[in-house]
């Protein structure tokens, strides 16, 4: 019986059905996820959102996550079976490239799990010269707000200096859109700046614990992909 279950779990056909299932329920979710309750999904960690949101809103995501978990297991087992079957046949790169891509995919899934469990997001408005404090006692002070207005009256560029003090050491960074400052796993993002009357900035603090694993997974996937393209060239 275990053999039958293993064979089923490690089969390509089962993997195809699982992938189809994930596609199908993500598709439903793209139409279903609107409304006030659904739109809060990006404001908190995913697992927290799943806990606080009614099942009527989040059911498609529960099904997707369950299918994705089985798909991850299926990917692991298919990779093992593929390596075992081809070990004596194809050359090393042909054997290994798709499995490196599978490993990258698995790391990205794992990264999403880390982020779903531990991501944090907060927004705060700060005045020039003011500071915010992290729970560990470190302090972030915002200075030197600067911005330039374009011909059409729109803000074309803006930046702020941040001084991060922790354990008696102070480091200064300039933050602007696409250029956050990082401290202890937290990113400090400058979202908007107002220069009329008082200088004020909208700042977001993010923690994304899956980012490193996602990047590692993406790099592995890309390396495997490039090798696969090279070895399949002309075939």
């Amino acid at each position, binding site marked *: 019986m275990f053999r039958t279950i293993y064979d089923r779990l490690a089969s*390509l*056909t089962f*993997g*195809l059905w699982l*992938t*189809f299932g*994930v*596609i199908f329920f*993500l*598709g439903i*979710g*793209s*139409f279903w*996820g*609107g409304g006030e309750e659904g739109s809060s*999904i*990006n404001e908190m960690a*995913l697992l927290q959102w799943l806990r606080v949101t009614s099942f009527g809103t989040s059911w498609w995501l529960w099904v997707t996550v369950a299918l994705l978990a089985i798909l991850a297991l299926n990917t692991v087992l298919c990779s093992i079976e593929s390596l075992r079957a081809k070990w004596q046949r194809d050359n090393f790169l042909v054997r290994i490239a798709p499995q490196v891509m599978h490993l990258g995919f698995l790391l990205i899934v794992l990264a*999403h799990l880390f*982020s779903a469990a531990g*991501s944090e*997001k907060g927004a705060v408005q700060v005045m020039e010269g003011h500071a915010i404090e992290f729970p560990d006692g470190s302090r972030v002070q915002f200075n030197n707000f600067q911005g330039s207005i*374009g011909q*059409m009256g*729109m*803000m*074309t*560029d*803006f930046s702020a200096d941040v001084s991060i003090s922790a354990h008696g050491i102070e480091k200064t960074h300039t933050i*602007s*859109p*696409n*250029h*956050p400052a990082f401290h202890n796993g937290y*990113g400090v*993002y400058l979202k908007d700046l107002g220069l009329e009357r008082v200088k004020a900035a909208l700042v*977001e*603090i*993010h923690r*994304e614990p*899956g*980012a490193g694993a*996602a*990047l590692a997974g*993406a790099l592995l*996937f*890309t390396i495997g*992909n*490039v090798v*696969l*393209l090279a070895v*399949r060239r002309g075939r």
Partner: protein
Amino acid sequence: MKWVLIGVAGLYLFGSFKRPLLLAGVVVELFYLAWRGMDLGRLPLVGPHDTLVFFSTSIGVMGVPFLYSKTLGESSRFTFGVGLCAGIFTLLSLPFPSFNMPMPPILRTYWFELHVALAFFAYALFGIGAILGVLFLAKNERPLLDLQYRAALVGYSFFSASMVSGGIWGYYAWGTYWLWTPKELWTSILWLFYSFWLHLRLKGNQWDKWVAWGGIFGFAVALFTYLGVSILMKSSHSF
């Protein structure tokens, strides 16, 4: 400068029957893009007008190596498919006004340009894969399906790289490499669909017709991801 695009669309559509005209259309549209890029001081990749022009140029450019592949030889049907596809998307760009304002600071990064450009190269290759799928269903010649696989595999590689660069940009711009918005969901659906399709090929020759149809359906998913989501749904991506 819309008259240039009308001319390009004409070259593409007449190029459906005369290959040199198709190549002329590609060259003229590349010049148009270069001119707009120099005028704006950046790659023209914002808004429906510029993205549709970039998309049709990508179809033309990506189609050129296939025009000269041994498998297709002098196939007039493939030339017709590429010319028609590129011509239609050039024409679709015409009703939309071009975005000439300065880029918002959040879009001024190479990660954004890489993310969008790679996505359109991928969409174009998925389109070429769909044309090859139609040709396979019409002629039932196996090499056409192999060529469809190559187009889709390279497209899938571009698309994966686009998702990676989008994730890196998102992390630096918004603090997260992933947002639960319809565009991200459909991007994942498209990526998963082509992952599904590439694995479906491993089932063997008896699935050839399904694979060919899958390549055609995949392009429909790509078009919905690009145009359908942007027009019908609320998302972090305007286009």
